[in-house]
């Protein structure tokens, strides 16, 4: 982790090697979910369907990026003793912005997600990055770090959701208007897509709908990631 502030003079919005690394690191080497272990709760809560996971990822990228930016701008003025309350106020206001925007843009999805959007306040990725990075770095770098971590989180979220929805419900993108019944006999879920599914003998696996399934899938992701990225292997 590059957590020390860069001291030399540089243009305000530089985009060199270091900045690219801030964006790409969280996708693999420093992934928020599989390496830093932050934001697991919502990964368990929303990933049983793909569409909520995508909306959730976009919301987290936004909140993470802008809360890092604002915290970094204010970092020299926040007293250490009240820093958490200040950070939470920043996060809570951004989450309110997201909530109202989503309500305006797409009301059905807002109704479906409203509880989960509120949960972003208690998503540890946001506050974890504020504590670990934004309090010690300049605004532009903190902003990029927030975007990168949001994307790393979203990537895992969407991959888990694809697996869980496909095997748990036999469909993909349910609720988005382009929903597809992929495998298994289509009986009760979507009346308008009755025929032509593959593997009609497949019965939906209810284990995949349980939150415990997300634990297993993330565990297997970690296994796969660490078997080709050996420097992450836990030696202790």
């Amino acid at each position, binding site marked *: 982790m590059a957590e020390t502030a860069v001291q030399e003079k540089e243009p305000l919005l530089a985009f060199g090697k270091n900045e690219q690394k801030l964006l790409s690191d969280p996708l693999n080497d420093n992934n928020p979910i*599989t390496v830093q*272990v*932050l*934001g*697991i*709760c919502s990964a*368990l*809560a929303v990933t049983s369907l793909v569409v909520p996971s995508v909306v959730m990822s976009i919301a987290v990228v936004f909140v993470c990026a802008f809360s890092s930016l604002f915290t970094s701008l204010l970092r020299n003025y926040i007293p250490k*003793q*009240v820093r*958490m*309350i200040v950070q*939470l*106020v920043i996060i*809570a206001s951004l989450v309110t912005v997201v909530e109202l925007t989503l309500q305006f843009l797409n009301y059905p999805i807002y109704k479906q997600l409203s509880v989960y959007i*509120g*949960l972003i*306040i*208690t*998503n*540890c990725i*946001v*506050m*974890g990055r504020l*504590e*670990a990075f934004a309090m010690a770095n300049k605004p532009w770098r903190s902003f990029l770090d927030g975007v990168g971590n949001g994307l790393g989180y979203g990537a895992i979220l969407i991959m888990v959701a694809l697996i869980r929805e496909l095997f748990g419900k036999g469909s993909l993108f349910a609720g988005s208007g382009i929903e597809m019944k992929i495998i298994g006999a289509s009986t009760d879920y979507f009346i308008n897509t009755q025929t032509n599914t593959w593997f009609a003998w497949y019965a939906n696996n209810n284990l995949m709908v*349980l*939150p*415990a*399934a997300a*634990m*297993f899938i*993330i*565990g*297997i992701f*970690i*296994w*796969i*990631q*660490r*078997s080709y990225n*050996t420097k992450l*292997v*836990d030696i*202790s």
Partner: protein
Amino acid sequence: MGEFFNVFIKAAFVENLVLAYFLGMCSYLAVSKTVKTAFGLGLAVIFVLGITMPINWLIAEYLLSENGVFGMDLTFLRLILFIAVIASMVQLVEMIVEKYSPSLYNALGIFLPLITVNCAILGGSLFMVSREYDLTQSVAFGLGGGFGWFLAIIAIAAIREKIRYSAVPAPLRGLGMAFIITGLMGIAFMSLMGIDPAAFASN
């Protein structure tokens, strides 16, 4: 008094916050490498949950409800006020731990301030509101929920200490194994759901 124990037992075992609702996962997974640090964090969570729950109950009852001090429905402020109470309590715990046990403070690292965003704490307060507990029950729920969280993190820390000597494939060692064990523990705990301690008391 019987009611107190009913809610306590239910919160600690039947509806365990970690293993039945999967709340508070981040710090649960990251701090459970050794029993010693797990013990410290578990105690901190019991303390924070036990204190914030009655305070939040008083806030919800006397400030935010229609019959409260301001005489109007202020429930839209609930989330922000709950979080503010939790954040100040965590800050207090952090200062106490830093003063009296610097080694524990260093071992817990970033996860001490992260108790604030431990979903088990905020989730507990929200459960308390939605289940309409009274003051005694909310104290019992706070202590019981914290105790259940404490037991769960001690259990997984002990399992992880033992499993270190097993022939787990190298890439799965540590975090990956912890995820899979938690999933299995969660499925095991599902068998406890639906048990109602009150039913035993009345028989």
